[in-house]
């Protein structure tokens, strides 16, 4: 189990303090894979390095298993923490062989392991990551993917209580990345090892995690299962950072049994009332008439039709661009001066220059405040 409470870390920069981590709290239950997801500079790596003990926090409390490794009274140095870590650069030691790299944690922990025990543990770890038979190679003779596996084997060889992964897949090419994503997840489940995973890649986060925390400016903006994060984002930052999305700023014109009606540049949108209390207007139990809100829907949840057929949430659009990408076709359309994205299966894609965009009410979500569409570098 990992427990982080009100973690603080700041740096001096150009004479002022930058809060890299600002009161972060989360908990990773035993055996789960927990992901810190966010853009660069959001504090995710700093948090991970605080958990590893590579950075000294400025406040808060960190518990690994049943050991308090950091609080205002305690500080356990890195080498005494029961962890294994995989670095973004893999940090494979170039002056050692594959075997020596993997055996290092067992040789330096101060206990005298019998040689046979070390050999067995290293063999097992290398076997786990598919590097059996490479023991005598110099580490630098390995390919990038193999170095990554070796790094994982080294992190696992002493069976640590907690596994820390710092963007481990970002240096791999696309195909290998997808493969390693599944490998790591399978391995983590098999070993039931509590894992903290840091990434800026939403696909990695969604596909590998038990739970995801989306970070921004050193704080958690939303935490939940991958499904919750993707399907029910609670603010425009999460909606935009995780997956592609359309944002329509508008004003609430009516709240009734059917849902909330919002006037936007595109037209009137009907959406279900937010499912979380206090989600809509500040201090209220839901959005009130006149409140500034944002309606959001995913490109793949809406469709382009040739005939409006009197359905609600259907607006005429002009097709600016349709790009065929194989299984799906992505459309850029414009309605009332607002550009929107639509993704449909290629078989049902329209070919006309104009069409109607239909956004079923149940795929629309209402987010608090009028959002500025911002493109975050993924």
């Amino acid at each position, binding site marked *: 189990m990992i427990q982080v409470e009100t973690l603080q870390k700041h*740096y*001096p*920069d150009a004479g002022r303090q*930058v809060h*890299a981590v600002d009161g972060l709290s989360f908990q990773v239950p035993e055996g789960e894979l927990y992901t810190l997801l966010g853009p660069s500079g959001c504090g995710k*790596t700093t948090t991970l*390095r605080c958990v*590893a*003990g*590579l*950075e000294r926090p400025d406040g808060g409390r960190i518990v690994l298993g049943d050991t308090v490794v950091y609080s205002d009274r305690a500080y356990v*140095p*890195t*080498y*005494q*923490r029961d*962890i*294994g*870590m995989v*670095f*973004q*650069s*893999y*940090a*494979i*030691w*170039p*002056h050692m062989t594959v075997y020596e790299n993997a055996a*290092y*944690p067992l040789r*330096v*922990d*101060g206990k005298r392991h019998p040689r046979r025990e070390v050999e067995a543990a290293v063999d097992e770890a290398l076997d786990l990551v598919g590097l059996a038979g490479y023991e005598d190679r*110099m580490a*630098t003779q390995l390919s*990038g993917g193999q*170095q990554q596996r070796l*790094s994982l084997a*080294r*992190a696992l060889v*002493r069976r640590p209580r907690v596994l*820390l992964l*710092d*963007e481990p897949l*970002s*240096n791999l090419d696309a195909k290998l990345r997808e493969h390693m994503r599944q490998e790591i997840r399978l391995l983590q489940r098999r070993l039931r090892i509590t894992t903290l995973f840091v990434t800026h890649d939403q696909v990695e986060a969604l596909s590998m995690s038990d739970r995801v925390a989306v970070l921004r400016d050193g704080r958690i903006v939303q935490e939940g299962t991958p499904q919750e994060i993707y399907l029910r984002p609670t603010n425009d930052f999460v909606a935009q950072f995780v997956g592609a999305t359309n944002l329509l700023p508008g004003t609430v014109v009516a709240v009734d049994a059917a849902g909330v009606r919002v006037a936007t540049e595109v037209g009137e949108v009907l959406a279900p009332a937010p499912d979380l209390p206090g989600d809509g207007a500040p201090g209220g139990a839901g959005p009130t008439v006149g409140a500034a809100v944002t309606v959001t829907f995913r490109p793949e949840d809406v469709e382009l039709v040739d005939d409006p057929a009197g359905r609600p949430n259907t607006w005429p659009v002009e097709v600016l661009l349709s790009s065929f990408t194989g299984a799906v076709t992505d459309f850029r359309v414009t309605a009332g001066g607002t550009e929107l994205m639509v993704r449909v299966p290629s078989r049902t894609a329209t070919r006309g220059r104009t069409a109607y965009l239909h956004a079923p009410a149940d795929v629309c979500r209402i987010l608090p405040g009028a959002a500025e569409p911002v493109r975050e570098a993924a």
Partner: protein
Amino acid sequence: MTALRGQRLARGQLGSRALLLLVLCYLVLVPLCILLLASFRDGGGGLPFSRRSSWSLVNYREVFLDGRTYQLIGNTLLLSLGALVVAFAISIVAAWLVERTNLPARPFVFVMIVAGIGTPGFISAISWTLLLNPSNGVINGWLRTIFGLQGDGPLNVLTMPGMILVEGLGLVPVTFLLLTAAFRALDASLEDAGTTSGAHPRVVARTITLPLLTPALLSAFVYQFASTIESFDIPVTLGLRGNIVLLPTEIFLRVQPSVGLPDYGLASAYGVLLIVIVLLPLIYYQRVIARSERYATISGNAYRQRRARLSTRGKVLGLSFLGLFVLLEFLLPTLVLLYASFQRYYAVPTWDRIVNGTTQAYEQLFASGLFRESLGNSLLVALVTGLATMTLAAVVSWFVVRSRSALRSVLDTLSFIPHAIPALVMGLAIALIYLYVTLPIYATVWIIVIALMTRYLSLATRQMNTGIGSIKRELEEAGAVHGGNGLQTFWRILVPLAAPAYVNGFLLVALLAVKNLSIALVLGSADSQMLATLIWNRWDNGDTSQTAALSVVMVVITLVLGGLSFWAGEHAGIRVGGRRRRRRPGRRDGDAVAEASVQAPVAPDRAPVPLP
């Protein structure tokens, strides 16, 4: 039409290549050949190529059969290795304190450690003679007072340990820069991976940091070994007074004997021997570099280097250690020069004497035509040598980096050879040429320019290789694709991008030209007096006051050139190739200065800044 143009282009290129090859051969190979030939001539009491001389092995017989030679080699090795031990012991601790601990005032400490980088060796030696000669050395005076001693001593700098100390202190700034660069080039996550594997920081230092630093340490050691073995200033200033003769001083004594005629043949044979001794470690150095290539690793997040937290006692100890070093290497020598320059006659400083100082020495200096002339000569030589060397180097580098022809390795080798030729031997070889080729430049400053240019060509080409190498070929091609012709591409793209490396190299070569003593001594004449030789003559005549005043002028010039070079290095770091890393929290300006001024010492084309 196109074919015709292609032919004309090819012929033009061929012509410029042939010219370049010719220039390099003339500069590099001719002196070497003359030196080699002269060493096989029996001058018969005259010049090696005069009518009375003949081919003979007599010089080599004298060199190798005389037991004295082995004593000279022994002394030379002893000084070099001793100085290197001193320099590395200090530099490793200093680099670790500055790079890897939370020592306070690190940027200031950094600047103070490298402040003495431009000070000429013979000026340090003169200062140390004033500080530590057995009769009236300042420190000896104090020690005698404190311990109530009588007579001379207790310490004497005119001995082998004294020379080792002064030479060692002088080597520290460059060694320190090489080591800090090595510490910085080390990927922090390799060490972090050690601690997260459960290794105590001490174990990490032993099993990871040290082995990974070894190639860089070794190459720095060998590199500095090559530069200290040709060291001339300290052996000639301290050694001769203490009757300790080294290989370089022996060559000097043969060329400019106090009585009798110069023996160029024997001097040449000694010169060839010295080249061989310098060459061996350099060949090894190139090998070390080739091997260290395999330590290249994938880079990830550039983390802030974690720093060891020092206790208050650790900080005090660390600062005291560095303070003592700066005191010995820079402050005391500079202060004693300042003091002596304000005294009519040199004596152990007392408060009275300091207060009653006189500016007489400076007044005499500025009234003296000889001073103005030699200052002018030195500045002219620095300017012309800098421009000529860097321009030639830029052309050579452009061919070496860009050309795919066989010529490139020939040019590369030719431009590297001078690195193995000690400045003194270079001076000797050039002198030999112009003894026979009657050109009007003999006994003018221009012969000094040619010698200095040849000697520092290797440094200049390494510098430009880095500069031009960091300009991606695509940038030039983009210029051509967008309609610029060759000349426009050259002026508008290549020149501005390579300019920082050029300026930086120019300042370095100019600094080396100003502070060089051996070439100016061997090639200078009454009409081509340089600042360095003027100081040397005043010192030889026992005029301490004038020597000190002149030395102060020299130190000011070298400090300015050194400072400019650092500034330019920082500038180059920002502009060329964007190699400067993203500014991370907690970084100070001192880091950037060092980073830019010294390129990583492990890669062959990124030679360190070798201020000998």
